């Protein structure tokens, strides 16, 4: 099943941004959900050091995150959702679905 994408290949401004580690080429980023119990496993696994505890909550640095999804994969609570960077429905011009 092909992913639903904008018709014009496009992404939000900033999805490719300059960061201390060089140019980040990211197509998704983590969003920490309510199920997070601050076990901090994600911080242990993040290869970029993009996650940290801030005011008692796990926060994501989008300057450092490379969008690999390791945090979401490792989270024991399944509290992390990877959200795609492309700009949703913008630019979608509906054609009939599923016909070829």
């Amino acid at each position, binding site marked *: 099943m*092909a*992913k639903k*994408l904008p*018709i*014009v*290949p*496009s*992404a*939000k*401004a900033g*999805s*490719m941004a300059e960061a201390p580690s060089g140019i980040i*080429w990211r*197509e998704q980023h983590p969003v920490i959900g309510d199920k997070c119990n601050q076990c901090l496993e994600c911080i242990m696994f993040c290869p970029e050091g993009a996650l940290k505890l801030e005011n008692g909550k796990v926060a994501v640095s989008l300057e450092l995150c490379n969008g690999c999804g390791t945090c979401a994969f490792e989270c024991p609570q399944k509290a992390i959702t990877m959200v795609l960077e*492309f*700009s949703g429905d*913008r*630019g979608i*011009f509906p*054609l*009939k679905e599923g*016909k*070829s």
Partner: protein
Amino acid sequence: MSLTLLTGSEAAAYGAMLARIEVLAYYPITPAFPAMERMNKFIEDGEMNTRFIRAEGDHSALAAALGASLAGSRTFTVTNSQGLLYMTEVAYHTAGLRQPVVMAVANRALSAPHSRFPEQGDAISQDASGWIQLFCENNQEVLDTILQAFKVGETCRLPVMVNYEGYIQSHTQEEVDVPQLAKVDAFLPFTRVSALDINNPQGINTVTSPDLYMDYKYHQNDAMSQALEVINNVAAEFSRDFGRDWSGVIEGYRMDDADHALVTMGSTVSDGRIVIDALRAEGKKAGLVKIRSFRPFPAAAMRAMLKKVQYVTVIDKNIVFGSGGALGNETKAALYGHLSIPVKNYICGLGGRDFRPDELKQVMALSEERAKQTTEYEWFGL
């Protein structure tokens, strides 16, 4: 409506004028150039409200057209042969970014050796570019197809090439019925779709990783497949509004009881009709299959049309080196595994070599004689 004498280039210019194009990006090349001259006259005379961008090369011309289209303009360009090759990189961008730019192509042979004469090799070089490719048999069809091309392109969000042969069509006058602007406006309303928006800035054509690239290509190809139906619907709607039926993606001429089918596209189709009529007068059951849409290729419709024939002769005004004629290859691929009819593929009329109706008749006779021989393709007229 008014009946007038127009060359193919002028017919293309009239089509663009009636479609109310907003941006024309162009770099001059022979034999496509007279279309630009005529459009400039329309602009000068105030008949077209169009921004003309004089580019420094064909690559830039299509880049300008692509940018204008992303900004939401109805955009047009014209080129052929070397210009089309030089545009190739941006042609793939335009298709991948799903912009409905319409391009008239006055088909001309490719260098080397240098040539200025008609052949369809330039269009064939773009067969994987993701552009819808429509071929016209006469100048009326050029004008009408430009109008249909905008509607097809804007519906499918794909760019469209409208092909007519250099000189044979681009520089030859024919009677053309120029439709009234009000009727065209009703047939071809314009909805502005702008991918560029200063209030919601975003990156267009961003680097796409293996996670998404293939899905984008799936959707692009899906749109191309759906275009088969869109082209048919738009042609039917055009026929209702203007009384001229160009029959969508494919047309069968006297095919009902035919046992020998001549398959071709472009100007050879109009010669083909004369030859088929002559063969019918001799009592031979010959028919013609006109491919109007080379991309997307109407394989299923072609199979249905060739179901009952014994002989298939495919005329190609192009050569894919080491492989054969492009239309011959598509025909064989469409039939393979479904119908076991010998397909004889002839390479004819390259680089402007004259290919007359009597020669077309000879080729068909030759094809029947050699139907049992398993040659991949043959050259005619050397």
